[in-house]
């Protein structure tokens, strides 16, 4: 990460962040068939009526769009989804749309960092 931060123009990085959140919003909106305007960075996935397979499909959409791999097990997807959001368990890697965008951004950054290092 340090290599990346020193090697990338800050305004370009900010621009990428906007693009990521917009893509994340549109992929979630499409999977759940809801208007993209409903989704802000603070919106929680478990408030959107997502089921576990919806979460898995959203993660697949993000992986395809950004060419990244997001580690997520099916049971985590279930706990993220509305149907089982009160069962507790270990802390989830993300719960809001903004969290998802952050994770995607980190994975995208990690992917480009070797190139920046060259």
């Amino acid at each position: 990460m340090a290599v990346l931060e020193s090697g990338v123009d800050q305004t370009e990085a900010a621009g990428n962040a906007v693009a990521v959140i917009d893509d994340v919003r549109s992929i979630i909106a499409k999977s759940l068939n809801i208007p993209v305007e409903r989704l802000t960075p603070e919106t929680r996935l478990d408030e959107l009526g997502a089921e576990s397979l919806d979460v898995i499909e959203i993660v697949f959409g993000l992986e395809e769009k950004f060419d990244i791999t997001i580690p997520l097990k099916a049971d985590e997807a279930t706990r993220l989804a509305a149907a089982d959001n009160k069962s507790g368990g270990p802390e989830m890697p993300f719960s809001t749309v903004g969290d998802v965008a952050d994770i995607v951004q980190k994975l995208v950054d990690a992917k480009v960092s070797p190139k920046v290092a060259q």
Partner: protein
Amino acid sequence: MNRVVITGIGVVSPIGSTREKFWSGLIEARSGIGPITIIPTERLNTKIAAQVLDFDPAQHFDPKKLGMLDRFAQFAVVAARAAVQDAQLDITEEIALQAATIVGNGAGGMNTLDDSYFKLYGQNATRAHPLSIPRLMANAACSQVSMDLGLKGPTFTIASACASGTHAIGQAFQMVRLGQTPVALAGGTEACITVGTIKGWEALRVLSTDTCRPFSRTRTGLVLGEGAAMFVLETRERAVARGAPIYAELSGFGMSADAGDITAIDPDGAARAMRAALIDARVNPEDIDYVNAHGTGTALNDKGETIALHKAFGASAEHLAVSSRKGVLGHSLGAAGALEFAATALALHHQTIPPTANYEEADPDCDLDYVPNTARNSPIQNAMSSSFAFGGLNAVLVLDRA
């Protein structure tokens, strides 16, 4: 109604393809899970499966016949031949005309499909092999069993994903019980360890990358397996009259659908199938000594199945011995219910409960007696074998000591 007994058992499994090797592997908790060697793994994140490695098709089929057979059909035919031999069943013309052949498989000839599509899309081949369709069709295994043994009675395939084998045995049981046929060949088969299939399972995020640990707090998911088990089922009267070996009596069959989630287990739906099987077998929950669980080793199945067992068995759940075969056999989808039915029949026959392999730590969500890691000699009068499939399809069989 006829009483129905199991007189022949044939298996093709990751721990061996004779009944003796299969049983010793189960009671020793000798896991058939290992590094994938039967297909290329460069493009897979999952490098393990429970493969059938001691199976040489050329030992069982001449080259011309082999050309007709996908791996899933090879397994079924070899298991069916073994079951017939085990039952010392003489397939007379009279029996051939009446015997039912019912095979469960979740998919079909996936090796053939994968190979064909790779050639077409990956290598730009211009034509498919002329035997592609006869090899890959979902009923290929069932039809090949019927052709191989010359069985000409009611013959069809049942596809209900991971419950296929159990549904097939249950259907055959009902036909023999009702007198529609005196003898049935029934079971399940699957050979789904292909790049395309594993990619699909990886995308569902339920595969473990190390091993399968059913009901253990440390479980990390399921591991795909393959294999087949076939059975000779016949009326008790007929079996006794001809002095056939009897492994166990098949006494009850229960089914239900969740009509809910396409992948997640519904404890209510699973419990309804268990209760239906108990009622069909005319036994009470406290009469069941042993349950062969579906126990896939995913966080959700094992928790949901435990809840279902509590719902179906009430207070007597505390005294139940419950164990899963999937740490040893992996999850062979449509074959799983059949291989596990073989294990359950053999448990009754040997009066020994095969253990849950790879069990490490108790999970508060899974609070039953899972017979961890070590087989248990214990009197078993009645046993249950459960399968809960994707699509919310549940099938449960009850067996009685013969």
